[in-house]
């Protein structure tokens, strides 16, 4: 009888131990996750537009098709020029015919405002993140067009394929509460 009581006690001890361990693990993981989230330590991938060399790999290396990388436009930096180095091929006629446009998918809409200003709007549905416009804008303009990883599209892979292949180490993890590195005053105000 005494031996039976001892056996039950041992089994109970082991069961209680396992339950406690599992419980602590679950609670600990939850607390850790909550704490990490609350302290902003989640990270997402993003492109530093200053380091980006417009190599074009964002369009081809991303696991998503189309790429989660899109061109964005810092309007406060844009010159609103008639001749836009990000919109027109060098030497092209300054009109909207497809043969004049740099963008292979016509993802930039050019809209006349008033002499001498033109607005350039990115159609993200069409943008494939090839950076041709960014290269043209950086070489001949103010650099207002630049690439960003869109987090509504990005899968946030553990190992980002475009970060791995980026030749200029322009892609790194950034805090999830500051997920974009936008050029121009927009970022400054956000940070301020």
């Amino acid at each position, binding site marked *: 009888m005494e031996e039976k009581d001892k056996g039950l006690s041992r089994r109970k001890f082991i069961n209680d131990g396992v339950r406690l361990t599992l419980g602590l693990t679950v609670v600990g993981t939850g607390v850790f996750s909550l704490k990490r989230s609350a302290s902003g330590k989640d990270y997402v991938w993003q492109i530093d537009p200053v380091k980006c060399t417009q190599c074009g790999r964002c369009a081809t290396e991303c696991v998503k098709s189309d790429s989660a990388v899109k061109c964005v436009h810092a309007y406060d930096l844009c*010159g609103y*020029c*008639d*001749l836009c*180095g990000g919109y027109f091929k*060098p*030497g*092209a*006629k300054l*009109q*909207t*015919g*497809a043969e004049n*446009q740099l963008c292979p998918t*016509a993802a930039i*809409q*050019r*809209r*006349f405002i*008033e*002499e*001498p*200003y*033109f607005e350039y709007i990115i159609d993200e549905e069409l943008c494939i993140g090839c950076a041709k416009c960014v290269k043209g804008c*950086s*070489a*001949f303009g103010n650099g207002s067009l630049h690439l960003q990883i869109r987090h509504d599209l990005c899968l946030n892979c553990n190992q980002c394929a475009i970060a791995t292949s980026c030749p200029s180490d322009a892609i790194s993890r950034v805090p999830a509460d500051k997920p974009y590195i936008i050029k121009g005053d927009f970022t400054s105000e956000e940070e301020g």
Partner: protein
Amino acid sequence: MATGLLVLAGVLSIGWWLAKDPVDELVTTQPGLDNRGEHSVVADIDIGAYFETMGELNSELQETWPRFRGEYFDNMSRSKVALIDKFPAEGPNVKWRVELGEGHAGAAIYKGAVYLLDYDEELRADILRCFSLVDGEEIWERGYKINLKRNHGMSRTVPAVTEEHILTIGPRSHVMCVSRQDGEFIWGLNVEKEYESEIPLWYTGQCPLIDNGKAIIATGGRSLMVALDMESGEVLWETPNENGWLMSHSSVLPYEFQGIRMYVYSAYGGVFGVAADGPNAGEILWQTSAWNHQVVAPSPVCMPDGKVFLTAGYGAGAMILQLSKSGDQFSVEVINEYAPKEGLACEQQTPVVFNDHLLGILPKDAGPLRNQLVCVHPDDFTKVIWTSGQDKRFGLGPYMIADNKLFIVSDDGTLTVVTPSTREYIELDSYRVLEGHDSWGPLAIADGYLIMRDSKSMVCLDIAKSRQ
């Protein structure tokens, strides 16, 4: 029954497939989608109507920097005034500073006076401003009202100054001639209206030329180039524009080749030389459409042996022409053309010639050497002798040689002093003088006073060694 339904579904599918236009959802990208309007009507402008006197100039200074690229069109000062090699720890001595309308216009200096065609954003007027070189006191203003919108700034030309006259071209190609002594208005010309010219993108960048009492303007439009009498504004000759070439941002360069004086201009459409003197003055001596780019800001660099170096930004690179003369006939051939990554090319400023070598700053699309100062071999402009290095990049700012020193202004207003050399890059000192951006206006120097600017302000630096 089931088989019948399947056959029916198949027939309907094939019918739908045949009837369906596979590209009916595609949108064609055609001209005119930007809803661009017609060009606005050219306004009548009362050139020279505004005038105000503020002070009086009493100066015994005699040196001059009378126009774009200086007296000899080479951006090289012949002044004997020794200049400093290094800046004091607190920076160069800023004699005076003046706020300007946004732009890139450069100054001319003549015997103690500084002349600048500014755009007054409050008055909404092109204003020729005369300052005292030594203290910056404003002496007088002459101008005209014109409503301009900022388009990478407004002003961007350098006046031409002689003992008697000052000649300016405004952003919309309004030419104004005034008396140098007192700013009295003499005559004006609305080039856009009179010659049906097309104003270049980002406004007029051509700096006017006064040559032997004539105002030389490359108008484009109805005439390719015109000469006007400086005293009266009367048209002396007009060069027909049979090819419909357009005014560029480049400036007219006087050039003498095998005893014949000519004016060389790099237009949109081609480059040409026009006889400067004699019975055939105003006639085209040679021309070629081989050099035809959308944006051309640098001026041609014409060598004594007939080589003409042409360069531009926006991917254009450079071209070298060889001019020849046989009897009375000139001919021109392209001897080299290359991309900006392959040799000396410049986007905005004109290269300088130093000991037969060309020095210039490469554009942003020049690959690994982008924005670096380079020196190229005189026999082969694709052969780079030295560069300023990857840690020393500049931008679209100006550079000039004075007292055997090369002064370079970076976009952010940093002034760098370099010993010009055909062997290596030798930097003497560097200091950020201006706080603004787009410091692109050409430099001017006389009597040891250097005038430089950013997009919104202009300063006079006293860099004479004897006055430090």
